[in-house]
């Protein structure tokens, strides 16, 4: 993020990096443009003010929060992070060359220019079905106007009509921001950061301008859109409330209002696969909470950059869930058992989790009987979905599990209507068995056969953590009598490599064990790096256990070939550029505490401090340029060929 787009000026942006949660941005020159409007409606009007529950997730730190906070505390706190470049006058005319709407917003009604951008944004978020690219802000934008019109009408309408429809679209985002005294420009790209705009007009001027616009638009909106009024109303109340409300309440109010809009948006998106849950999206989190079986309590100090991911207190759910066992009648015991094992960490590793889930589903299908007046296809799919959401609550699904579930659901959907229930059940169970056999067990065997050809006598093979397929490769190569040496690189806190080391040493392989800190030292002795992977994405990015990217990068720097071993069912058509968008957060205690070392207890009493955020990431993304080869059940392919496999394979497993 460059200095121009300094995040402090952006009300909606998620602040990047580590920072003290309540530190207000140091922008003294800014204060004059944010007068606290004491005449705003009282907080009780807010529909969300009573929805503030103790389990409520702390709201994202919008600028509005910080500003409101600042209004009460006059002392500016110094800038916590270097890249949040402070202090630009609000009268700076041009912020960036790509920021043309600024002058429009400041001086004239921002109708024409930004609207096209909003449309672009909307279409984008509509098309990015996986919701992968979308971070919360673009989603909010999309939802904030999507209540007002449906996209098809826009696409079909003429330019004139088009413009008319667009108007409310532009207005809404602007209105809601204006209360917070900052204008956010809708972006073309849908990354979370919205560009800051410097206000040129005073608060009062802009308010007047908006009132005029709103009045003008109300009619148009009512005509074109039926839902328009309902979505517009809370918007009107919002700006005023925001200013006086205490920080949490105000932003919750914002999010609740969005929830209303989202419901209409949801209908529009029915045919699109559900986007990944964004955990900084209050309304959806609330909804999910209602359904939830597992009683998760939110982590106290959530890591700011990863708010969109679930961050829960670890270790609290298990006893609770165990005690609830008999109250959860719709839950199948096999599913329940596997869910608990996920939660407790007894089952880990992509393949193991997948197989456990499939076997649980097999049990479910065996014990299933179609309720009267329902069809097996629909009822079973719904049931599976509810189990899947239970699994998700226990531990976020891996991408390979997502693929597997997709396979199972497509099998259920493709059952012929004429087939009897027992036949359908038998065929589904057979399908599951075949999936496990063909896509996991046999695939591993094929991978081993391929990988062994790349192990020569005298090689030094490095592996990181513990991957079951890499372990099988090493053992098989050893069985073949190849002479090689294994370097196992491991890392805290899981230390999975030790288990692997034990098994390999037991089989008589010569091994070296080291921690990831020493990887750059050991790398120059290494001839091949074998790594496992949780998923391989369509741009060749390897999504794997945290630390893999580091090992691959060091290997690349030392010109050591990096071989990724991954079954093709783990390939995913999504694209991942960083490890922020999609990740999983582990127990923060695991990194703050060192078991068995009483002398290393520096963090013992600090875990609940407000200004400490512990980040225990589970995965990272290795860019494809660090990967020399991906070994899959379809052979050895370069990372550029992953989309081909996804295409071919995706076709295959629909009619498997």
């Amino acid at each position, binding site marked *: 993020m460059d200095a121009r787009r300094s995040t402090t000026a952006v009300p909606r942006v998620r602040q990047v990096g580590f920072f003290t949660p309540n530190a207000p941005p140091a922008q003294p020159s800014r204060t004059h443009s944010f007068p606290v409007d004491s005449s705003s409606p009282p907080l009780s009007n807010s529909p969300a003010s009573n929805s503030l529950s103790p389990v409520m997730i702390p709201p994202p730190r919008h600028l509005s929060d910080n500003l409101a906070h600042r209004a009460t505390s006059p002392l500016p706190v110094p800038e916590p992070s270097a890249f949040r470049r402070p202090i630009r006058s609000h009268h700076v005319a041009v912020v960036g060359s790509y920021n043309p709407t600024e002058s429009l917003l400041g001086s004239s009604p921002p109708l024409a220019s930004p609207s096209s951008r909003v449309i672009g944004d909307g279409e984008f978020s509509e098309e990015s079905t996986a919701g992968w690219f979308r971070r919360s802000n673009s989603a909010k934008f999309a939802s904030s106007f999507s209540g007002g019109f449906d996209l098809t009408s826009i696409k079909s309408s003429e330019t004139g009509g088009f413009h008319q429809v667009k108007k409310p679209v532009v207005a809404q985002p602007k209105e809601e921001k204006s209360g917070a005294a900052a204008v956010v420009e809708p972006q073309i790209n849908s990354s979370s950061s919205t560009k800051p705009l410097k206000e040129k007009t005073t608060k009062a001027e802009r308010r007047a301008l908006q009132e005029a616009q709103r009045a003008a638009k109300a009619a148009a909106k009512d005509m074109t859109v039926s839902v328009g009024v309902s979505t517009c109303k809370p918007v009107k109340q919002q700006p005023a409330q925001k200013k006086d409300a205490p920080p949490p309440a105000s932003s919750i109010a914002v999010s609740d209002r969005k929830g209303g809009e989202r419901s209409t948006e949801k209908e529009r998106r029915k045919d699109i696969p559900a986007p990944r849950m964004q955990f900084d999206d209050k309304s959806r989190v609330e909804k999910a909470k209602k359904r939830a079986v597992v009683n998760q309590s939110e982590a106290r100090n959530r890591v700011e950059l990863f708010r969109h991911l679930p961050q829960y207190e670890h270790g609290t759910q298990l006893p609770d869930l165990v005690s609830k066992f008999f109250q959860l009648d719709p839950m199948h015991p096999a599913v329940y058992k596997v869910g608990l094992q996920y939660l407790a960490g007894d089952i880990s590793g992509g393949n193991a989790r997948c197989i456990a889930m499939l076997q649980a589903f097999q049990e479910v299908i065996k014990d299933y009987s179609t309720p009267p007046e329902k069809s097996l296809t629909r009822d079973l799919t719904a049931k599976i979905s509810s189990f899947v959401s239970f699994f998700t609550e226990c531990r976020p699904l891996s991408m390979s599990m997502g693929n597997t579930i997709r396979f199972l659901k497509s099998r259920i959907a493709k059952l012929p209507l004429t087939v009897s229930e027992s036949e359908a059940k038998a065929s589904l169970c057979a399908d599951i068995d075949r999936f496990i056999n063909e896509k996991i067990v046999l695939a591993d065997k094929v991978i081993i056969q391929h990988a062994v050809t*790349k192990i020569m006598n005298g090689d030094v093979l490095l592996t990181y953590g513990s991957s079951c397929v890499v372990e099988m490769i090493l053992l098989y190569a050893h069985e073949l009598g190849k002479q090689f040496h294994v370097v196992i690189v491991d890392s805290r806190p899981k230390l999975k490599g030790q288990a692997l080391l034990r098994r390999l040493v037991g089989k008589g392989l010569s091994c070296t064990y080291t921690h990831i800190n020493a990887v750059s030292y050991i790398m120059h002795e290494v001839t091949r790096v074998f790594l496992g992977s949780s998923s391989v994405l369509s741009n060749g990015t390897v999504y794997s256990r945290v630390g893999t990217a580091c090992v691959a990068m060091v290997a690349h720097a030392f010109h050591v070939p990096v*071989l990724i071993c991954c079954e093709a069912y783990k390939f995913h058509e999504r694209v991942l550029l960083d490890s922020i968008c999609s990740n999983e957060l582990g127990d923060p205690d695991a990194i703050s505490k060192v078991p068995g070392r009483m002398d290393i207890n520096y963090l013992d009493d600090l875990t609940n401090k407000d200004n400490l955020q512990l980040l225990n990431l589970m995965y990272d993304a290795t860019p494809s340029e660090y990967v020399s*080869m991906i070994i899959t059940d379809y052979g050895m*392919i370069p990372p550029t060929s992953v989309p081909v496999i996804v295409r*071919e394979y995706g076709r295959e497993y629909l009619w498997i």
Partner: protein
Amino acid sequence: MWWRSPSFILDKQQSDTVPHQRKPPDTLAHPLPSPLPFSMEDTLQNPNPQNNISAYYQTRAAHHAVVTGDWLAQAQAAIGQDPDDFPDSTAATVAGKPFSVIDEFNSWRKQPELAEAVAAIRALAAVIRNCQATTMMELEIELKKASDSLKSWDTTSISLTAGCDLFMRYVTRTSALEYEDFDSAKSRLIERAEKFGEISCKARRIIAMLSQDFIFDGCTILVHGFSRVVFEVLKTAAQSKKLFRVFCTEGRPDRSGLRLSNELAKLDVPVKLLIDSAVAYTMDEVDMVFVGADGVVESGGIINMMGTFQIALVAHSMNKPVYVAAESYKFARLYPLDQKDMVPALCPIDFGVPIPSKVEVETSARDYTPPQYLTLLFTDLGVLTPSVVSDELIQLYL
């Protein structure tokens, strides 16, 4: 470093066995054992039992190499070499001896204009024709056996292996098996085999046509060694009155670059001969690099005669495009990770002076150029980026 020692030992073993092979052949004659019309079992072995000298590179050397003083005359006489090395295989079959795919292959291979893979394809087509089988299964098994024996005849030749594999894919992946009648199925297979042979023959023309858009007037082209398809490209460009000049590397050890410069001079193309080590020196004058390929591997990289990798490296660092002209039957399902990760293909090197026995000589005939140093591949499937090679291979083999 201790992990390097095994390869060092391996090198030593080879250098112990090689010496008698290393002395340069004084003529173009092949050290191949004369394949008398013996049965298949005998021909299954590689002509070079110790597997040190690559038969593939021997053939290349025989066709294109310039080793002796009167090379101009020899280049002329290259066609129809060694009549007694290869007894007429047709005579063998006529005489009622068992048909041998190796003999058939060798008789095709003698033609310098015919690529080894095409020779293999023709030999396999002949297998179908001469097959005594009465069922499809038998025929397929026999075909498989023939292809395996061809492949094991010379494991160092990538295009031979790839050509056989492709033939098997192309021919057997047909609706022929649906025919009730065996004879019609067999004739369908033969038809398909001949079609495939034809396609392979035309490949060079197609590549030459495709590459014409990339050769502009006034450009300077650097070529390495002698590649028939690159020569075809340059010939087509010269015939279509394009003005360009060519820098030919010498192409040690078989000095096939001399042959190319000779051929180009005949076409009145301005040509300059460089020693192999002058590549970086001249690279700033060069507009594009054209190389052939012995094999195109799954990663999109190429395996080609020694020196291609360093030319590609120099060109890459000077931002010059590197174009590879390769027929699609050279696409192989191989994936070398580095230079040593290949079946070693060695060729004797003549240094002109005797080399002391304590001095080791690197005799590898080929190197591997990773895809990031290549710009485009001209193939009969079209002009491809390196990453498409894998896509094509996946679609072909999966």
